[in-house]
């Protein structure tokens, strides 16, 4: 019954199939995290601005994104972006754009909660010192908020890394695809999926342990 054969798993297989996919998953995760945080901060500030013409677009965008499955968002962008710019785009480029737009919604909620966790007194203290809104945010609120929300953000990034596998829907070549392709080629899909699971687990579990350590450290400083 148990007839596993991992002999196909060697350096050639890794470098031919897995590394390329891993590289894409990694780059996609990093770009989407950075882009998501930048765009997410903007969305969070819009939502907290108390100006309706800023609040509403941000609210609709964030809640809209959060109620649609990521796979559908990926499909939407893959369908719409070529229609808008008038020429076909690659699955990889489309995936990058999608993930930035999608993660921005989630990061904006994390950032909003982080900003709101800063006591009102801190904001007032900044204002009392004569700081402008931008100065107060940049020098007082955001530095404190970012430290508080760092663990949650990193956890979101780990989830994001796992979610990059969903580019499967548009045929982009990520790490999971790499394993799958190798499995098909060598006629060993079962072993390939098992290996993929081990690799994903080791990466995500180690990262989440790190985040937990960081969380404890931050909790102590606070």
């Amino acid at each position, binding site marked *: 019954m148990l007839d596993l054969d991992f002999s196909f798993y060697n350096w050639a297989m890794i470098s031919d199939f897995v590394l390329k996919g891993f590289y894409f998953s990694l780059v996609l995760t990093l770009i989407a995290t950075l882009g998501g945080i930048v765009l997410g901060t903007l969305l969070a500030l819009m939502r907290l601005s108390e100006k309706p013409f800023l609040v509403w677009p941000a609210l609709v965008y964030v809640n809209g994104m959060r109620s649609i499955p990521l796979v559908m968002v990926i499909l939407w962008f893959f369908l719409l972006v070529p229609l808008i710019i008038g020429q076909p785009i690659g699955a990889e480029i489309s995936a990058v754009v999608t993930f930035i737009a999608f993660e921005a919604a*989630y990061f904006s909620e994390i950032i909003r909660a982080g900003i709101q966790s800063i006591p009102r007194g801190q904001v007032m203290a900044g204002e009392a010192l004569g700081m402008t809104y931008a100065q107060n945010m940049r020098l007082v609120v955001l530095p404190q908020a970012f430290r508080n929300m760092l663990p949650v953000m990193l956890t979101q990034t780990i989830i994001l890394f796992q979610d990059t596998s969903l580019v499967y*829907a548009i045929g982009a070549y990520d790490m*999971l695809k790499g394993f799958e392709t190798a499995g098909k080629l060598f006629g060993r899909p079962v072993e390939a999926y098992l290996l993929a699971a081990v690799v994903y687990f080791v990466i995500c579990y180690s990262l989440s342990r790190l985040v937990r350590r960081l969380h404890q450290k931050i909790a102590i400083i606070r």
Partner: protein
Amino acid sequence: MNWDWEIFFQDPGGQHTTYLEWLMSAWGWTLSVSLLALLLALLMGFMIGTLRTLPKHPGWVLFGTGWTELFRNIPLLLQIFLWYHVIPALVPPLKELSGFVLVVLALGFFTSARISEQVYSGIRALPKGQFYAAQALGMTTWQSYRYVILPRAGRIILPPLVNEMMSIVKNSSVAFAVSVSELTLFALQVQEETARGVEVYLAVTGLYVVSALAINLLMGQIERRVQIPGLVLPGATGGGH
């Protein structure tokens, strides 16, 4: 651009008379997968989360923690592939199970890890005196959990649980990868058949949003029903997708 909503009344050929009917059937599959997976996830999640809080049973704690970490740290899509391609190859009797059942198992176990995490922290958030009080009245560990700890933890974690319920509907979309004919697979197939991608995607997206809203409203009702008079609960936040 030109809209063409007429396509929903055309005959796709095959088992459905119109695309609209196919769409509704796909919605039904999405909801069935989600609901069954949710039941499984709640059952396992509460069990595992509770096991992880039993102080005198390190074996159970280890098992619960291992379960949670295992199902949390592998992408859902890969878990679905594992259930579909790998587990039946290792355990031949499971070959009889349909893709639908395997997806329910995959999504249910995946979500159970996330719920177990909520249950675990919900129980840990209760004051230790509540355990003491239950025990001081002569309750066994089982009775303390059954009558005191779990009813309270359940209420604390209701808001994040609502998030998980909405997530499970969204996550069910990954079932397209193993050809369960739910909404996302419908979107993919019909987009290709009709080339009316925007209309098809809009309809499917709309149904996902409607499902999420329905859960939100329903749970809002339940939340009000089980609210404890005179008790203010600290707000809970949920992340993830």
